[in-house]
């Protein structure tokens, strides 16, 4: 079964203006009567949040099962539940089946009405100026990527709940078979990319450089293929340790020379593969096996190095940060990075929560990733020398950082002073990013 696009509602962003209802009524009936809208917003009963009644386009729809006249059908291509006026007998049994108020009788039209997502361009979403309604099209990306060839082994040795498999598989599908992958020591080869027992773990050539020389080796391979006249993508899948610590010299050099490389960093804030030691990307206060928590030591005492900003300072052809909680954003950046890597150095930094090393339940990975963004603990942006740095997912009204810190074990010991330090660091980070933005497009100093 394919994935489908959907209309998402964020009650905390809704101010009840009703523009969506009028837009829907206009689009569907030509009238301004909000009662005829397929989307109904009303004041809720808790916290003053607004409530939504609209068709969920259920996967196993009860309205369809309840229809005696075969007038309702789930369209497995679009995911929308289609209503056939010529078959409907107006019995309203569909309204009995729906526990969401998603199909209702229109007293003017004298028949039931329901949302059809406006053939992929919902009028309600266009009318919403507060970001409460969003048309989520991530599904079409999954379907599209799902049709591409999977270039990674079916089985792998990652920890349960790790999002790195998703990153490896989708990056490989997207970049395609004409690729050479460098996987320096870390979780990516540990999960099976470089293979076991003399067999590789991917369907493209893959090699295992040292932590120190990933970018240098890729440089040589890329130049060799170029000289041979072959258009091959040279892609690194490196951890934060390999990129920001001992691997930084070769990375910096390749970036400075503008090598045509796609360098993807999967940042799980430490050497998680070898026993969760700290790296220069480990944030302040975090527990790791080398920044333990005891009577004296209370986690890491230094702030994380902001590696992607360092890459901006290299004036790379493309630099971006991404999160698996925001896949549309990630795919946009992945596509752009692949494209840019044909002419210069493209650097994609993906924040990757680690279930084992950060100590949170395996089903919470995406939630942790989302909270990191929603608290501004990490920021999603992209940079090109011509246009400068721009936030791709600005969070103007962030959640308190404690909402992020409390969802995992590695910050459980934090004192109020340490939390204050982290808050100050986030504020400083925002200032630095804003400075970068105001200096957009300025020539390198």
């Amino acid at each position: 079964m394919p994935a489908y696009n959907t209309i998402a509602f964020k009650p905390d962003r809704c101010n009840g203006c009703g523009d969506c209802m009028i837009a829907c009524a206009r689009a569907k009936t030509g009238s301004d009567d909000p009662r005829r809208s397929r989307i109904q917003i009303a004041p809720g009963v808790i916290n003053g949040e607004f409530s939504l009644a609209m068709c969920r386009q259920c996967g196993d729809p009860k309205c369809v099962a309840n229809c005696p006249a075969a007038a309702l059908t789930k369209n497995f291509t679009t995911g929308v539940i289609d209503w056939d006026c010529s078959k409907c007998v107006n019995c309203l049994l569909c309204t009995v089946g729906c526990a969401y108020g998603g199909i209702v009788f229109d007293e003017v039209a004298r028949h039931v009405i329901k949302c059809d997502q406006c053939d992929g361009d919902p009028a309600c979403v266009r009318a919403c100026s507060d970001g409460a309604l969003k048309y989520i099209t991530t599904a079409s990306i999954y379907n599209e990527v799902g049709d591409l060839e999977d270039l990674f082994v079916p089985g792998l040795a990652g920890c349960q709940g790790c999002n790195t498999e998703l990153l490896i598989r989708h990056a490989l599908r997207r970049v395609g078979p004409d690729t050479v992958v460098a996987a320096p020591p870390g979780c990516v080869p540990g999960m099976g990319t470089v293979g076991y027992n003399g067999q590789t773990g991917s369907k493209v050539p893959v090699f295992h450089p040292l932590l120190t020389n990933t970018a240098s080796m890729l440089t040589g391979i890329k130049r060799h293929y170029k000289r041979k006249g072959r258009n091959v993508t040279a892609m690194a899948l490196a951890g934060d340790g390999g990129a920001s610590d001992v691997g930084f010299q070769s990375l910096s050099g390749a970036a400075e020379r503008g090598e045509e490389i796609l360098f993807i960093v999967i940042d799980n804030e430490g050497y998680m593969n070898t026993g969760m030691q700290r790296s220069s990307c480990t944030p302040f206060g975090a527990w790791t096996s080398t920044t333990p928590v005891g009577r004296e030591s209370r986690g890491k005492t230094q702030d994380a190095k902001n590696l992607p900003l360092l890459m901006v300072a290299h004036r790379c052809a493309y630099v971006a940060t991404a999160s698996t909680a925001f896949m549309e954003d990630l795919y946009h950046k992945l596509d752009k990075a692949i494209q840019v890597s044909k002419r210069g150095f493209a650097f994609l930094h993906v924040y990757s929560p680690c279930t084992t090393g950060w100590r949170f339940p395996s089903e919470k990975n995406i939630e942790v990733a989302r909270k990191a963004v929603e608290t501004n603990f990490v920021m999603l942006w992209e940079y090109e020398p011509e246009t400068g740095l721009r936030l791709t997912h600005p969070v103007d009204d962030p959640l308190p950082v404690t909402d992020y810190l409390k969802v995992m074990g590695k910050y459980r010991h934090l004192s109020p002073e340490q939390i204050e330090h982290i808050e100050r660091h986030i504020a400083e980070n925002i200032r630095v990013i804003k400075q970068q933005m105001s200096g957009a497009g300025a020539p390198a100093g």
Partner: protein
Amino acid sequence: MHSSHYLIVGASHAGLAALAAIRMADADRELTMVAKDDTLPYSPTVLPYVVSGYSDPGRVFLRDDQYFKRERASYLRGRSVTHIDTDAHVAQLSDGTEIGYKKLLLATGARPAVPAIPGLGSVTVHVLRTLDDALRLRASLPSVQRAVVLGAGLVGIHAAENLRKGGVNVTLIEIEPQVLPGYFDAEAAAIIAQAFVDAGVDVRLGAEAVGVTPEGGGFTVQLADGKSLAGDLLVVGTGVTPIMDYLRDSPVATDRGILVDDTMRTNVSDVWAAGDVAQARGFYSCEPILNGILPYAVEQGRIAGMAMAEDPALETYRGGVPLNTCSFWGQHAISVGTNAAPEGAEVVTRTDPARGQYLKIILRDHRLQGIFGVNELFDAGVMWELILRRIDLGPVRESFLERPNVTARALMSSTWR
């Protein structure tokens, strides 16, 4: 002898919901569905619209052959089950063949219960349960001038409306003092009955037919009050009775229907029942009740299918609540829940006779017991959940009574969105 892991007897809503539920959990094991009619599956509920000509009889089918092919299910049409050997796990079909099964679902539905009125057997009686019934009734319409409809339940009033729309003189006879007993109270029923009177239907409530005699091409119906009615088309819609003849000499326990537990299983292992034939726990009393309405056929069929396929996501039956929707002369009535106000219940009614509107809400301990509306629209499915979940309406009582639908949606939004 042919054998199938899953055998579903009956091809209407309960059987189809079970098939879908089984295939969600078990895509592979052999599945056979036996349909009494020699057609693709259809719903009895659509039949009045076939009679009136509103629905094209060729377009009412709920599934096509492709569906069964896609779901890898054999669809045996035009056959009924005549006997079941639950020890040997074998069902005998009306064509003389036998099918072995591992798991059996009885979704054989119900047939019209024709009352024992003297003389009824001597005239042509129309009922409305199968597509054949509907086509036969439709074919007889052009020559009909005076129709008598026995029973003012959903089938009876639908038939009366559609006959009247066809220009026929119609008399509607109901033994109870109101139309749609069981779903609506007297006041709501009076609004509905009035619509029929206004449309020129002769509505006789509290009237009992005591005899029928053939006369010319037609018949005469004698009523208990001594009056008599002449007609040339007799439609009987006096309720239905579960079809379970094939359970004679069977250990499967029955009462008015086949008794089932909260997973729709009968007292015999590997045998389930769902839909109009099943007698499952009632929501209010916990006694097993017949609740022969479409949404419950779907619900019970789904639960039975999940239980048969051992789907770990199965949640047991929450009990049957009476509910229904009724369209009449372009108007709408919806009932969700019990109309019988229990002791200590709070009953709130609101009427607007000018607009033909009626709303009644029954609360008990701040929980919704039932809500009934005539030309008062609300989300029946949302109300149904409020009842089943026993949602505490105490904190929102005033606004619920004032604006039940908006409040119910807000509760939905904060409870199960």
